[in-house]
C-alpha cells in the first residue's frame, strides 16, 4: 500500500480538486483506493456527495485504533474508491496529537492496518504546517504539492522545502506540480520556468486553469463524469499516470 498526501501550506491552490481527481483515476486504473479527507471543511467528501459522520467528536478517537477508522469508511459511487469523509472535529487533531505524546509516526501507524484492503491511500490535507502536517510527512510515501505559478505560491513552496531540510525529512518525498496554470499570463510562464530550473522533481504534467475544475462544486463529481473530453480532465489523467510512474520508481 502506498500513501500519497495532497498537501500545501497555502490554501486555494487546487489541493482538494487534485486529491479528488487523482483518487478517481487511481481507482479507475484498478487500484483499490481510499481517499482520507483530513480537512475539517470536508470539501473532497462534498465532491463525492458523502456526508461526514453525525457523531460529534469521532475525530477524538481517530488516532486510537485502526478499527475506529474502518467504521467511517464510505463507498463512493465509483468502483474501487472509498472515502473517509472530513469532520469538523478534525480541527482538533493538533491538540490530540500533542496529548498523545507528539509522536510523528502516529498517523502512519493508524493507516498501516488499511494495507489489507487498499493499494493506495490518498490524504487530502488541510493547509497548515502543524503537528498533523508532520505526521503526514512521516506517513506519506509521496507528498504531492500543488503550486500555482505565482510569486506567493513559489514562496510557500520554498518555505516547505526549507522546513523539510531543517526537520530532516526526506526531501525526495516532495513532488510538486503546477495547478491553475494560465498560459497567457507572462508571470505564470516565467515562474514555471524558473521553478522547474530550481526544483527538478516538478512533474511534467500541469493542470490548466479551467472553469471545469470550478464546476466540480456544482456537479459534485470528478471532472471525468461531466467534462470527459475537456483539457482539465485530460490533464488530471496525464498527471495521475505520471504520479503512478513516480510511485513505482520511489
Amino acid at each position: 500500500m502506498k500513501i500519497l498526501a495532497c498537501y500545501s501550506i497555502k490554501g486555494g491552490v487546487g489541493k482538494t480538486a487534485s486529491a479528488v481527481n487523482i483518487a478517481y483515476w487511481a481507482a479507475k486504473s484498478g487500484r483499490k483506493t481510499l481517499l482520507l479527507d483530513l480537512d475539517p471543511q470536508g470539501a473532497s467528501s462534498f465532491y463525492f456527495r458523502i456526508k461526514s459522520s453525525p457523531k460529534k467528536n469521532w475525530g477524538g478517537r481517530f488516532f486510537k485504533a485502526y478499527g475506529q477508522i474502518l467504521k467511517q469508511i464510505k463507498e463512493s459511487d465509483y468502483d474501487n474508491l472509498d472515502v473517509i469523509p472530513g469532520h469538523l472535529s478534525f480541527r482538533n487533531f493538533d491538540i490530540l496529537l500533542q496529548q498523545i505524546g507528539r509522536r510523528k509516526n502516529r498517523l502512519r501507524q493508524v493507516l498501516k492496518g488499511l494495507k489489507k484492503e487498499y493499494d493506495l491511500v490518498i490524504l487530502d490535507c488541510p493547509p497548515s504546517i502543524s503537528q498533523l502536517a508532520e505526521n503526514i510527512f512521516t506517513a506519506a510515501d509521496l507528498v504531492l504539492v500543488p503550486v500555482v505559478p505565482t510569486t506567493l505560491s513559489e514562496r510557500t513552496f520554498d518555505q516547505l522545502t526549507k522546513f523539510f531540510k531543517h526537520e530532516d525529512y526526506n526531501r525526495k518525498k516532495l513532488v510538486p506540480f503546477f495547478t491553475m496554470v494560465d498560459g497567457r499570463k507572462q508571470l505564470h510562464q516565467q515562474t514555471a520556468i524558473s521553478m522547474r530550473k530550481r526544483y527538478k522533481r516538478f512533474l511534467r504534467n500541469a493542470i490548466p486553469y479551467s472553469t471545469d475544475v470550478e464546476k466540480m462544486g456544482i456537479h459534485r463529481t470528478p471532472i471525468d463524469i461531466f467534462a470527459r473530453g475537456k483539457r482539465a480532465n485530460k490533464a488530471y489523467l496525464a498527471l495521475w499516470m505520471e504520479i503512478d510512474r513516480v510511485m513505482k520508481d520511489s
Partner: protein
Amino acid sequence: MLETAPQACYRLHNEIPIQELSEIIPKSYALHMVTGIQKNLTLLDNFDWDILQSGLLLILEDKDKLQLLDANDGLLASCYLHGESRFWWQLPVGDLADKIEELSPIRAFVSKYSCQLKTDHFNILNLDEKIVVRMELSTVIGSDDQKSYFLKLFPLRGYQKNYAQISKCFAAIYSEELPDMSLLNLLLQSGLGVNFPERKPIFKLAATEPVEAAISRMAVKLIQLAQGQEQGIIDDVDTEFVHQYRVNIRKTRSLISLFKKSFSSEHYQLFKTELKTIGSQSNDLRDLDVFLMDQDYYRSMLPENLWPGLDQIFRRIKRRRVVALKKVVNFLTGAAYQEQISHLLLTLQQPPEFVTKQSGLEIRQLAAKKILAQYQQIHADGVAIDATTPDQAIHDLRIECKKLRYLLELFAELFLVAEVKQLVKLLKVLQDNLGHFNDFSVQREFLVHFGQGKNLSADQLASINGLAAVLFNKQVNERNHVAENIALFVDKSIRNHFNHLFKTNPKKGLDI
C-alpha cells in the same frame, strides 16, 4: 472486517415494471436505471458434466464467445470461436483450450441448456443523489419461453442503514430468498437440470442376497448403463460413448460368465450368445478410434520423413471409421438389436429360477470366494511366466487380471471399499503393463493387416513398416517388465491382504 452486509438475492413472483419498482422504495430515495444488457447463453459440458463437477461453467455467449467461469462468475479464460468447436483441440490455442484439456481431455462438450439473459442495473440514490444501494434485475428466458425473474440488492460500504431500509421494502414481492445469484444458480432456478451420471455403478447389494437375484440385478444395471451411451454413439458425439458402451457390455459378459453356475444352462447360453454378438458389433469402430486418438503419439514415434505416409494412413483410417460407425449405428437403431436387448433385460428381470445349487447362495460369500479364486489363478498362471513363455500366456493373464478387476470393482461395496481400492491400485500396475503389451501387439497386427490392403503408396508402406518396427520394440520392452510386475502383485503381503479381506466361512464349503 468489511462493514458491508451480505448481498440479498430474491426470486420474484412475476415481472415488475420499473415504475412499480420506484414505488416500492421509500420516497426519500430515487431509482435510476443505469444500463441494460441482453445476451444469449448456452451452458456447455460433456456427458459426464466434468466441467460443472469441477465447480466451473463453460458458457457460450451469443454463439461465438466461449468463457470459462468459476462458481462466483469470475472469468478464468475466454476465446472467440471460429468453426466447429466441440473438443478442446478445436479451440484457438490459448488459456481456455489448456483449461478445457485438463477438464475434458477426450470428451466433446455439448449444449446442456440455452437461455436468454436480460440484466438491468439500477442505482438507488439518497437526497444528496449519492448512490446508497445498487440493484440488479435479471430475467432468464428459457428455450421454452418460460420466464424467471430475479432481483439482487448490493449494499454499499458505510450505507448499511439505507440498505436495511430498502431491502425491507422488497420483502413483499419476492417468492424466495436465494443464497446467491451466480449464473449457475440463475440457470438452475430457471430450469437447468443436472444429473451427474454415476462414475461407478452402485448396486446396493445386500450381503445375504441370493446370487442369482444379485447377479441378474447387476447385469440389468450394467446393460442399462450401456444403453445410456447409445444416443451418443448414434450422434457420434465423442469416442467415449462407444468405449463406455463396450466396457459395460464387457463387464456384464464377464459377470455372467464368472457366475454362470447361478443360472440355468438355457439362460446362461442365451446371455452369453447375445452379449457376445452385441459386444462384437463395435470391435472395428473401437480399434479405429484408438488408432486415431493416438495420432500424435504415432507421429512422435516416426522420423519426420515418414509423416506424409502416416498422414495418408490416417486419412484412410478416418474413411474406414465412417463406414464402421455407420455399421454400428445401423445395428443400434435396428429392430433386431432392440428386440435382442429387450429380451435380455426381460429375462434378467424375471424372478430368480433357483434351479442351480449356486443360485441361492449368499452373494457376499460367493463373491469373496470368486475374488480369492481369481487371485489364486493369476498367482498360479503368473509365476509360471518367464522370458521364454509364449506371448499367448501373457494375453491370457491379461484377461484373468481384467476379470479380477471387474470382480473387485463390482463387488467393492460388499467389502471394505477403501481396502478394495488399494488392491485395485496394485492390480492396476500389472494391468497397465499387460495392457500396453497387448495394445502394442494389437496395433502392430492392425498395421500389418492394413499394410496388406490394396492401393497403398510407397510412402504409406514405409510408414507402416517403420511404425510396426517401433511398436515391436515397445512390445518387447513391456514384455521385459511382466515377470517383475507379476512378482510384485503375488508378493506375500498382497496375498495376505487378499486372504484377510476375502476369507470366507469354510463350513459353507462353496463349490465354485
